[in-house]
């Protein structure tokens, strides 16, 4: 279970990242955020990017999502290079921060992508209702986001991304701002959806428990500049139960193993 022994054929590789580097220019000084990151994600695989704060996880995800232009390196999705600044079709993104449009009701937020795509109103409504149901937000379709709790907002944001049925899901600490219990609830919601839709997921987090609960594989980032330190297979059976999985001995074992490695990076990240 060690770094980069995993080899996938080009056909099954959905996300392919090669030699990715990013250096930010900030007020004259260069900040090297990401250094030579290469990995790939198979079709239908759930991969977690784990690392301490500031290790460049979001930067990597944003480069894949075309929001940030790489300094060097290559990003392929389904074998096609992504174009910075131009959304890649079939790729959905869930933000670290709440970005629901405050001027749209929850239903209109969820239906936004469908509206852009020109889906007829009747079909749109049907799909929005299905999403509201799935997110347990049936009664809040006509509410504005400001009337929702943090957990509800995050579910709505998730549905806004999922309603257009992306095959690749990029998620940047989508549950970072939630309390532990709400978070575990959300893990179950996400696991159910993923088991059904089998999207390819790249999930950024600094919460090891979250990574273990959700992912097939964990890619561990080192402290800044972000590099891949190690990668771990997470071999729990599917379907998983977000609560029960935490009580198994295997969970404790993996937690121990990765925790140690992660801890070293946290300490490195803290020292100047």
């Amino acid at each position, binding site marked *: 279970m060690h770094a980069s022994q995993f080899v996938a054929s080009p056909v099954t590789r959905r996300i392919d990242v090669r030699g990715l580097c990013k250096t930010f220019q900030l007020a004259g000084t260069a900040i090297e955020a990401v250094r030579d990151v290469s990995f790939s994600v198979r079709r239908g695989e759930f991969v977690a990017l784990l690392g301490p704060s500031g290790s460049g996880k979001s930067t990597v995800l944003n480069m894949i999502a075309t*929001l940030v232009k790489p300094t060097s390196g290559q990003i392929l999705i389904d074998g096609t290079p992504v174009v910075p600044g131009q959304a890649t079709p079939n790729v959905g993104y869930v933000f670290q921060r709440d970005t629901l449009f405050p*001027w749209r009701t929850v239903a209109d937020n969820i239906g936004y*992508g469908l509206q*852009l795509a020109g889906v007829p109103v009747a079909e749109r409504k049907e799909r929005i209702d299905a999403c509201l149901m799935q997110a347990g937000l049936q009664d809040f379709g006509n509410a504005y986001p*400001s009337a929702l709790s943090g957990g509800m907002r995050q579910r709505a944001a998730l549905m806004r991304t999922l309603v257009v049925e992306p095959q690749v899901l990029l998620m940047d600490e989508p549950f970072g701002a939630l309390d532990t219990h709400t978070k575990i609830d959300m893990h179950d919601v996400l696991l159910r959806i993923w088991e059904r839709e089998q999207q390819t997921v790249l999930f950024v987090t600094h919460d090891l428990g979250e990574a273990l609960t959700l992912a097939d594989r964990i890619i561990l980032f080192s402290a800044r500049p972000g590099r891949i330190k190690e990668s771990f297979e997470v071999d729990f059976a599917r379907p998983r139960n977000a609560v029960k999985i935490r009580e198994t001995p295997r969970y404790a074992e993996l937690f121990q193993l990765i925790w140690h490695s992660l801890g070293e990076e946290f300490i490195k990240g803290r020292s100047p």
Partner: protein
Amino acid sequence: MRRARRPGRTLAWQVLICLCILSIWQWGYDLHDRLPWLVPDLLDPYFISKPSDIFEHFLILSCLKSKLGVFNGWFNGEFGRCMARSENNLWIATAVTLKNTFFGFVTGVSSGFAAGLLLGRSDRLSAIFQPFITAVNSIPRIALAPIIVLAFGIGDTSKIVTSWIVVVFLVFFNTFEGARSIDEGFVNAARLLGASEWQITRTVVVPSTMAWVFASLTPAISFALIGVIVGEFIGAERGIGRLIIESEARAEASGMMVAVIVLMLVGVALSALIWRLQAYLLRWQQHNLAE
């Protein structure tokens, strides 16, 4: 807003204050001879008229009464004859001023809004136009009114242009700031959901700047009115501003006061209209406060 639970009391106070002001205005100067140290000269009805005179004058200017103080009959045609005779009676003046204010406001708001969005979303354009905008904005716009009247004549066009020029910058700067301060998170979210540049403008940029735009609309409507009135002062055949100038020429304080009060009412009505529109379009903001 802690004491807002007693609207009856608030209203009572407001009525009381109104009555006080009106009474002092009406009868205050009668005390001038006896108590000269208490009553300022400015209270002289020669300068500021008094409520009863103003009301009387209102009836005359609006053709409800003849100049002799007799009520104009509707059925005997007196009212109609008066309307036809006086070019700039209160009704026509108000209509003309309102119409020009409306056009000045609408053209000013729409062009200011469009320019604000365009420059606010483009670093390139805003860098190019920055010095010009600062320069033109430094001119007190009202100072341009005589030039505008000279160029466009004493008809309605010059009033609309004056009104436009005072409104457009106000709305422009607010829209510009709004467009600058848009949360890029919303723009990115829209883009990643497949929005084109135009769709981003329509569904993200416009709604997020709305609050900023509305903040400028209440002052904009007063500015529009000011622009028209100043234009009418300088040269016009009809309008409330013209009415004020005519009364001033005759040293008739009551006539001016009628015009001023009509302007006040018009201003209040227009602001209320904007306020209603804002409450509807920005209803998503209300939810932060309510419940």
